């Protein structure tokens, strides 16, 4: 019964989305207040119906209702409750439902937070969101219905892939989707602006918080996925340049560019063409990511089981969505103004450089991901593009980006003075040279030395933004610091996060040590400055798995300083193995121990890694998210706060 309620509720949501996609648009054109107001009710109603459907599917998973085909395929009665719930989105159908739920959530947030939006704009934004809702609800109902029944119902389910039975991976998809789908708001605002034919600073102020929120969620989602891979896959890898990871990184990079270009629209009423295109591109990359993961067009280690009809459907959605938006752009573009004058060396110029670099990195990843497919179609030749290609371009471009993004905030709008900006960065320069020399002395590759120096430059240079605002008069320091806009703090904090992540990456790439040893209980092996002794290996039975559990003593200077536990688990439903690494996490390094196969004579394969600063990679990401949150809390950016008339005056 509950599955039927879910199915019915989803159908109602589709009907409502159809109305939301059309009536408000007509209302806005005819200036009919009632039809425009309907958009708000429809958006709220859509959220309600999709939430009911989602709750119904969750209930089916929690109660282990194996008469629902999806539950039988992906759940098991012996699974802990948390993973029964996470199992809802641990599969294609359920994760699409989560996708639509988040789409509806963002749609309903427009009337909730955007009360000050002009009526026509909010009606049009919601109409575009409605169209996206129609597309994805139809996709679920016609190709990926999660509520299909199974008759007769099996006694138990197939179980969830044990790799997914982990807190990190349970929370990774919701944040990822909050990011992907959140960018639909930027898209809807862009299309609404094209329909209205009006892209102005006020528009940028409205669109920026949504983009910023989506960006922060996506950052967190990617970070969780990377951290999960690190401790779960058993060899300390945290990024693989796999197509599915690239699918999440591309919208992140484009979204990062969008946050910055929207500033130029907001402050200077320039760069409007580009910002509109970037908003469309960012969401398009989210859609392409979905296409890539769910169509099987590119094989990846961790994509969903794929189905060509789904691929065709998503491709059609992609063509309709992006094609529609770009056609609208082609019609409107000739009438759009270029904007206010500025010179190359200026804050605007810096932000343009930021955009060129971010888009170049996005293009590298896009090419690397899809070039093998394009080549095979064109010439039949099969090639692979792997980490060496990505690193070749990604690392230098990122270093240039870090150098540039440190200088940008010191340039004035309209016309900047590069010499003066660099002079204000003298302490950062000293720090960069110091760190560069120090890392070179320790013994690091030349590119890594540059990366460390650039990270130091960015870190100190970002602090200098605050120092510069405080000035030399210490009596007024506190007043000045507390008077700084939150958005400035957000920028500084987020940039510091980038520096921290970059330093972490450079350190791990340069200084990782690895030891693979055959150990019997009582024997010791060395990695980094640690000595690790295998104490015992036990057989352990968990709730839904059996496990070989190895206990290790960490020895330093002859004394045991820590004990680590590493497991190799076997899950019978479905049969597969996972590795649970033993970690000693310290701010400056991580000792990583896994237990492998057993060998005759009671020996075990033991893999150990010493990863300096690896925690900084994710710590930096969290700092970036904090920066985004700080910026979002800025009163001037609060969703819907600015009124168009008022901001027009402020901007001119």
């Amino acid at each position, binding site marked *: 019964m509950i599955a039927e309620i879910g199915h019915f509720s989803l159908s109602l949501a589709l009907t409502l989305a159809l109305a939301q996609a059309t009536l408000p648009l007509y209302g806005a054109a005819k200036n009919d207040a009632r039809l425009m107001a309907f958009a708000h009710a429809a958006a709220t109603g859509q959220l309600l119906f999709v939430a009911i459907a989602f709750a119904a599917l969750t209930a089916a998973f929690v109660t282990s209702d194996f008469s629902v085909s999806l539950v039988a395929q992906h759940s098991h009665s012996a699974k802990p409750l948390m993973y029964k719930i996470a199992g809802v989105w641990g599969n294609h159908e359920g994760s699409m439902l989560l996708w639509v739920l988040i789409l509806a959530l963002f749609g309903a947030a427009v009337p909730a937070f955007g009360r000050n939006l002009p009526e026509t704009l909010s009606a049009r934004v919601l109409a575009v969101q409605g169209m996206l809702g129609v597309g994805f609800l139809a996709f679920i109902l016609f190709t990926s219905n999660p509520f299909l029944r199974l008759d007769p119902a099996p006694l138990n389910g197939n179980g969830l892939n044990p790799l997914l039975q982990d807190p990190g991976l349970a929370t990774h998809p919701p944040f990822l989707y909050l990011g992907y789908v959140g960018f639909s708001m930027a898209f809807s605002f862009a299309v609404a602006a094209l329909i209205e034919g009006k892209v102005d600073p006020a528009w940028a102020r409205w669109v920026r918080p949504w983009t910023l929120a989506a960006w922060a969620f996506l950052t967190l989602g990617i970070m969780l996925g990377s951290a999960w891979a690190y401790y779960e896959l058993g060899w300390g890898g945290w990024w693989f340049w796999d197509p599915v990871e690239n699918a999440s990184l591309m919208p992140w990079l484009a979204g990062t560019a969008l946050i910055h270009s929207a500033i130029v629209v907001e402050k200077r009423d320039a760069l409007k063409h580009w910002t509109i295109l970037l908003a469309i591109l960012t969401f398009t990359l989210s859609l392409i990511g979905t296409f890539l993961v769910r169509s099987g*067009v590119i094989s990846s280690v961790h994509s969903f089981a794929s189905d060509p009809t789904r691929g*065709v459907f998503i491709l059609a959605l992609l*063509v309709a969505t992006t094609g529609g938006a770009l056609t609208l752009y082609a019609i409107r573009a000739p009438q759009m103004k270029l904007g206010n004058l500025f010179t190359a060396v200026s804050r605007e110029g810096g932000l343009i450089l930021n955009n060129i670099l971010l888009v170049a990195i996005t293009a590298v990843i896009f090419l690397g991901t*899809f070039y093998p497919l394009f080549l*095979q*179609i064109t010439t039949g030749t*099969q090639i692979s593009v792997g980490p060496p290609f990505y690193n070749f371009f990604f690392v230098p471009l990122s270093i240039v980006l870090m150098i540039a993004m440190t200088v940008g905030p010191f340039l004035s709008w309209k016309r900047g003075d590069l010499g003066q900006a660099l002079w204000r960065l003298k302490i950062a320069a000293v720090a960069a040279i110091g760190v560069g020399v120090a890392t070179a002395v320790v013994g690091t590759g030349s590119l890594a030395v540059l990366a460390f120096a650039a990270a130091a430059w960015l870190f100190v240079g970002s602090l200098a933004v605050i120092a510069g605002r405080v000035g030399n008069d210490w009596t007024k320091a506190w007043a000045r610091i507390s008077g700084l806009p939150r958005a400035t703090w957000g920028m500084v904090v987020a940039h510091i996060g980038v520096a921290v992540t970059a330093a972490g990456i450079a350190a791990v790439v340069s200084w990782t040590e690895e030891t693979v040893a055959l150990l019997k209980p009582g024997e010791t092996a060395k990695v980094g400055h640690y000595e690790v002794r295998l104490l015992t290996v036990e057989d352990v039975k968990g709730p839904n798995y059996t496990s070989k559990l190895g206990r290790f003593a960490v020895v330093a200077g002859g004394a045991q300083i820590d004990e680590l536990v590493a497991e190799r688990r076997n899950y019978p439903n479905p049969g597969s193995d996972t590795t649970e690494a033993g970690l000693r996490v310290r701010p400056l390094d991580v000792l990583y121990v896994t237990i492998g196969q057993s060998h005759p004579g009671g020996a075990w394969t033991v893999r150990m890694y010493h990863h300096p600063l690896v925690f900084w990679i994710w710590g930096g990401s969290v700092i970036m998210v904090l920066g985004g949150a700080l910026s979002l809390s800025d009163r001037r950016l609060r969703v819907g706060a600015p009124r168009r008339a008022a901001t027009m005056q402020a901007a001119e």
Partner: protein
Amino acid sequence: MSRWLALVPVLILATLALYFAIGLRTDTRTIKSILIDKPLPAFDLPAFPDDGKRITPETLKGRVTLLNIFASWCITCRVEHPVLLKLAMEKRAEIIGLAWKDKPDELKQWLEELGNPYATIADDRIGRTAIDLGVTGAPETYVIDKKGRIRYKHVGAIDDYTWTNILEPLVKQLEAET
């Protein structure tokens, strides 16, 4: 902003969409052999069961054969097995087996239990010949022409569909060659 320049994004999208659409129907998973139309790589393997005979590319010359890579540990081979048996029994193809990294007793038991469709079995116990052939997994089947050249490679189990639609026409065509 020129009207034509504004159309560029739409055109890029159209090109991409076209590629994606073709991509949906393109098999990127199967790694194509680069040895097609090339002679079999050199190998010299004992027969199974070992009767002292050696199996080399020469063994496969003079007629059209199917060189089937299989193993008793391979689950999909079990699915393919009845199809091969039928082909051998009806004398529609000569199938040479290449037992890939198999253990003699397990292989023997497998053949006794399921039947033996192979005219000859080459025992590649260390798996080097399989790598020389560019094997990516079991089962795989190479169509070898009369001159001992590899003319086609099928990855995965042969079923009735692949036999009647792909392999049989090819075998007939190759048999007509001199």
